[in-house]
């Protein structure tokens, strides 16, 4: 088997286009995960013990079962309850929920790393709970959460190929389609791998830099 350059050039535009879809899937999924994850983290800090336990178990469940199965679950089970989801919507929900569980742990760690004295100072100034979270606690928790958040941003990107199984037209799906049409797998699959490398390596580096920048901006380093 030999690498064919003309074939490579021929399929490259299609793969690059699909890369856009992959990036979009990762971005949307991550957005959902960030918001939902914060909810899951805060729900575990309420004074209601039962809520904390239920959310905790739910997070554990999601974290310890395969994402690909969760994608199938959301996609096929929703119609049983009368809601038909497009592959994109089902995919975003599943991957968003999966990573929300991971991000909630990152947030939780970040929130717990904030000194208790910060809460006491906020109380002594009579700042309300919501205000204290927004202006005092979260800005300090966030820098501690950034490395973990960054890792999962790279993680979600690398998990988007799983969306191909329900027909989301991202990179992997496109590579599969090309393979099925041309019976050539070497170039499409290798290119997909290379494209992922070219995105995820610089992304990981970017995350590292963002962390240092943020810490400096918030006055947390001298």
């Amino acid at each position, binding site marked *: 088997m030999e690498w064919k350059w003309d074939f490579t050039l021929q399929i490259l535009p299609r793969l690059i286009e699909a890369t856009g879809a992959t990036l979009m899937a990762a971005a949307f999924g991550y957005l959902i995960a960030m918001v939902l994850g914060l909810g899951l983290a805060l729900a575990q800090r309420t004074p209601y013990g039962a809520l904390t336990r239920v959310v905790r178990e739910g997070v554990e469940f999601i974290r310890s079962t395969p994402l690909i199965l969760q994608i199938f679950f959301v996609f096929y089970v929703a119609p049983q309850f009368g809601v038909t989801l497009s592959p994109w919507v089902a995919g975003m929900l599943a991957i968003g929920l999966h990573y929300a569980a991971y991000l909630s742990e990152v947030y939780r760690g970040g929130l717990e790393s904030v*000194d208790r*004295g*910060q809460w*006491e*100072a906020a*109380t*002594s*100034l*009579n*700042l*309300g709970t919501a*205000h204290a979270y927004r*202006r*005092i606690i979260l*800005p*300090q928790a966030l820098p501690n959460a950034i490395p973990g958040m960054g890792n999962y941003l790279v993680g979600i990107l690398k998990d988007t190929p799983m969306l191909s199984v329900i027909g989301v037209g991202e990179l992997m799906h496109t590579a599969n389609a090309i393979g099925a049409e041309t019976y050539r797998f070497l170039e499409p699959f290798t290119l997909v791998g290379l494209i992922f490398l070219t995105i995820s390596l610089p992304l990981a580096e970017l995350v590292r830099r963002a962390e240092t920048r943020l810490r400096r901006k*918030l*006055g*947390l*380093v*001298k």
Partner: protein
Amino acid sequence: MTQDLTGYPLALTGPDRPMVRFAGVSKSYGDLQVLDRLDLEVAEGEMVTIIGPSGSGKTTVLRMLMTLETIDEGVIYVDGNPLTHMPRGDVLVRADRHHLRRERANIGMCFQHFNLFPHMTALENCTEGPIHVLGLTKAEARDRAEELLEMVGMIDKRDEFPARLSGGQKQRVAIARALAMRPKVMLFDEVTSALDPEVTGEVTEVIRKLVAQHNLTMLMVTHQMGFARDISDRICFFHNGRIEEQGPPQDLFGNPQSERTQQFLSAVNEAI
């Protein structure tokens, strides 16, 4: 656990009511009883210092007054109104969030470890509460904060982040931050304990100034006996969650009645 609160008045009235009153206040952590039916009154404008051995409950008293700890028994009144409780009909019930939020506005606190907000400059630390809690405009809050930073000698450093300030400077900003909320009662919990000895003076100077120039009610915990003697109207010696002895500084330091007080003071003097 519900306690019988029938003996407690719904409010304190009259011209000579105290600014702060602990009425039969008890507090336990599990089996450890930290405070045992504490009765303590602080008059308006009075400076009271609490001294006593480690673990005797000094910090707990201040934290309860700042509503950072709940109490098991008794009632705390501030400026005539119950703080830990609120009237419902003609009985007192446990304070809810809204009551606490309203009554807590009377109290300000400075902590041993400053607890400045590290992501805000000195000035922002001092304007956060006035803008968002008191509803001042940015300009008003800024004027107020600058005036106070001037008073504590920190005006030059108003745009510095806490990480770039020394311990003494941080504590002075923390004092300005608390004062910016215009509390009626100020609490100081060992505000010089985390400082290097040579800079404790810059903080105690500020407190001296407060005593001399403002009619603030103050409750202070300190291990600096000389300082306490100089500026306090009254000293309370705590032992095992009770007030063992209290009185004007010259009496308590000069002629302590209780044997425990004598032991404590001589131990402290030896240490010096």
